[in-house]
């Protein structure tokens, strides 16, 4: 079979056309965009673009109301975003929200969407976008970070974002967006959730011109010197890692020392945490579509007697159970199968079921830790003669908790922890202050935990012995050779 010449011509033309479409193409076709919108965007943003699609009520933050022509993320000094700003959000999505990346759509479709979205508030786009002029960039350095911290305190970022940036400032509960919906401040230690991206310029731009429609104000004219915008950026970047580097396996370090109860003890700080992402529980009613706790950092140690888990997670408010306000306590749980069996069979990850129970180490604020057996999220029974202990510290929007338990189990309802065995583990967490409790939780599926084998002292003996023997053999060879000569 041969392709006719005309066909090749068409192919070449297509290839040329595709190649010629530059990345910064601007003019989209609103009519073509409408068709894409109705297939991909309408469910959340609504037929009229008012952010009231069928799925909207399940989402927090709420989908954008395009009829207001008000956009959070923009690189402009005035209210009008550039086409590139809109294109970028469609392409990259908005981390920490339900808005996904639409990079899967052809670029042309995305430009057409930009044109269609603008048509919902055409009058708002009559004004030309005016690019914000950032001060000259200042590279990060210890001095710049120090100055940034000073400015962070002077301009009182902590009022909303908290002293250490964990979104736990005193104004947190009062914050509302333009539509009157509560809106939390950004957790500055988790920059991968920044709505407008985690790049240096992204952060500096948010600081300079604010986040429109939210309480985040513009600071460009409200810092002592213009370059303070960059010092602040450098300080914010120093507050947390670039990415959470989610773990796949949780290693439990072997130690011969006593394991400290204090979550702030130095020994704990030496361990690298395994960061585990948590999702909302959306299987059983009432569901949790907008979980408050999205990550727990796990450290673990064991010695010949006991095993200890060190859990760190962010929660802006320390809350206890409050019957009057119908609030549950903040809490967290580690889940294991009651017994370790060979083979891939594990109990149902959502706290077990009628036929297969799970074992829980469950901690609640102001109540402490308990060992429990669960046959589902609503069937939790404490184990008599619980031996677990816990110590917690809450500071600046973060819990640090140590839970300890004997290594060896007393009975069949709880597992014995054995070195070098892959053991299933799962996590659940509740933020009582955010209205979570019961099945309204965030959780993980099964992960694996492994107790490192204790390192034997033989490694200090065998290598020197081998070295000495080798030397002896070499000397022998040399001597024999010399004698022959």
């Amino acid at each position, binding site marked *: 079979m041969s392709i006719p010449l005309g066909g090749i011509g068409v192919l070449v033309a297509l290839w040329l056309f595709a190649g010629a479409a530059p990345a910064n193409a601007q003019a989209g076709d609103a009519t073509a965009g409408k068709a894409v919108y109705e297939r991909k965007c309408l469910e959340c943003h609504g037929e009229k673009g008012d952010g009231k699609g069928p799925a909207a009520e399940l989402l927090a933050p709420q989908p954008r109301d395009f009829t207001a022509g008000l956009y959070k993320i923009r690189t402009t000094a005035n209210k009008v975003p550039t086409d590139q700003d809109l294109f970028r959000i469609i392409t990259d999505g908005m981390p920490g929200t339900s808005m996904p990346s639409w990079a899967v759509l052809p670029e042309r479709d995305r430009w057409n969407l930009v044109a269609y979205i603008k048509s919902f508030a055409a009058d708002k786009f009559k004004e030309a976008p005016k690019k914000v002029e950032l001060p000259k960039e200042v590279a990060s350095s210890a001095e710049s970070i120090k100055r940034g911290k000073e400015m962070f305190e002077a301009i009182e970022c902590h009022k909303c974002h908290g002293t250490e940036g964990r979104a736990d400032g*005193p104004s947190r509960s009062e914050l509302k967006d333009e539509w009157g919906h509560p809106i939390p401040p950004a957790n500055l230690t988790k920059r991968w959730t920044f709505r407008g991206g985690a790049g240096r310029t992204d952060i500096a731009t948010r600081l300079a011109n604010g986040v*429109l429609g939210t*309480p*985040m*104000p*513009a*600071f460009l*004219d409200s810092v002592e010197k213009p370059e303070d915008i960059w010092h602040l950026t450098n300080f914010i970047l120093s507050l947390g890692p670039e990415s959470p580097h989610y773990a796949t396996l949780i290693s439990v370090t072997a130690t011969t020392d006593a394991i400290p109860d204090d979550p702030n003890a130095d020994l704990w700080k030496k361990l690298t945490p395994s960061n585990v992402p948590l999702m909302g529980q959306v299987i059983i009613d009432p569901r949790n579509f907008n979980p408050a706790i999205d990550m727990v950092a796990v450290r673990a140690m064991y010695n010949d007697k006991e095993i200890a888990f060190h859990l760190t997670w962010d929660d802006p408010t320390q809350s206890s159970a409050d019957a009057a306000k119908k609030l549950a306590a903040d809490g967290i749980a580690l889940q294991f199968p009651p017994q370790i069996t060979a083979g891939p069979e594990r109990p149902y990850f959502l706290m077990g079921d009628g036929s297969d129970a799970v074992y829980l180490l469950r901690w609640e604020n102001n109540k402490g830790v308990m060992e429990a057996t669960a046959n589902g999220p609503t069937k939790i029974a404490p184990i008599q003669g619980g031996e677990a202990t816990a110590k917690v510290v809450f500071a600046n929007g973060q819990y640090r908790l140590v839970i300890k338990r004997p290594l060896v189990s007393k009975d069949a309802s709880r597992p014995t922890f054995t070195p070098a065995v892959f053991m299933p583990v799962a996590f659940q967490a509740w933020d009582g202050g955010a209205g979570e409790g019961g099945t309204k939780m965030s959780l993980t599926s099964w992960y694996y935990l492994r107790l490192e084998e204790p390192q034997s002292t033989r490694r200090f003996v065998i290598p020197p012995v081998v070295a000495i023997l080798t030397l002896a053999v070499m000397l022998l060879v040399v001597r024999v050779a010399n004698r022959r000569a």
Partner: protein
Amino acid sequence: MRKIIGAFLAIALVAGVAVVAHGPGPAGAQGGGTIEASVTYAGAPVVEKLKVNKDTEKCGTEAVVEKVVVGGNKGLANAVVSVPGAKGGAAKAVKGTVDQHGCKFVPHVTAMTPGELDLKNSDDILHNIHTYSTANPSINKAQPKFKKVMTEKFEKPEMIKLTCDVHSWMLGWVAVLPNQFFGVTDANGVTKIDNVPPGKYTVEVWHETLGKQTKDVEVKAGQAAKVAFEMKK
């Protein structure tokens, strides 16, 4: 530096305009009349009280949000009385000034003609000026403790809501009016507008929660025209 010079120029310009405008003023004033407006409200005052959880040294421990303030003889405070249609006489620019003091906007209602508004922060803590408006661009600018004065421009007549997200109870209003013939009622619900060029006008009253009312009035040279409004829910 350039900004400071700019601000000076702007102030000088406004002052200049005011002086120039004032030039023929006395002549106009001689021929003008006065409007004495009284605004009453028979309903109950609306005052919300909130417990303050931060900055208590500056804000106190209880925030009072005065949405409807009723004084002696049912007089309604904080109502804006204006004569949008008044023509003649010399146009005069009236600059607005609002202070953020004790975590309140002082005064609660500021009236001004289109132009500049000085926003002061005498609290020595962070506030943010967040305005809600449609005719003018709405702004949300931080005003940290070291930024004692910020100047913003509102070019179009409009009632603009002022809030602060750091202290959510803070509420104020800026009335941008087309001319200088306006007044804001005092604690007794009374205000006086001087030097109104003679003529028949529609006088307007506006209150943040009780809405708008209008009444026709004839202003005669050298006389006081009385107008009374009774606001209803």
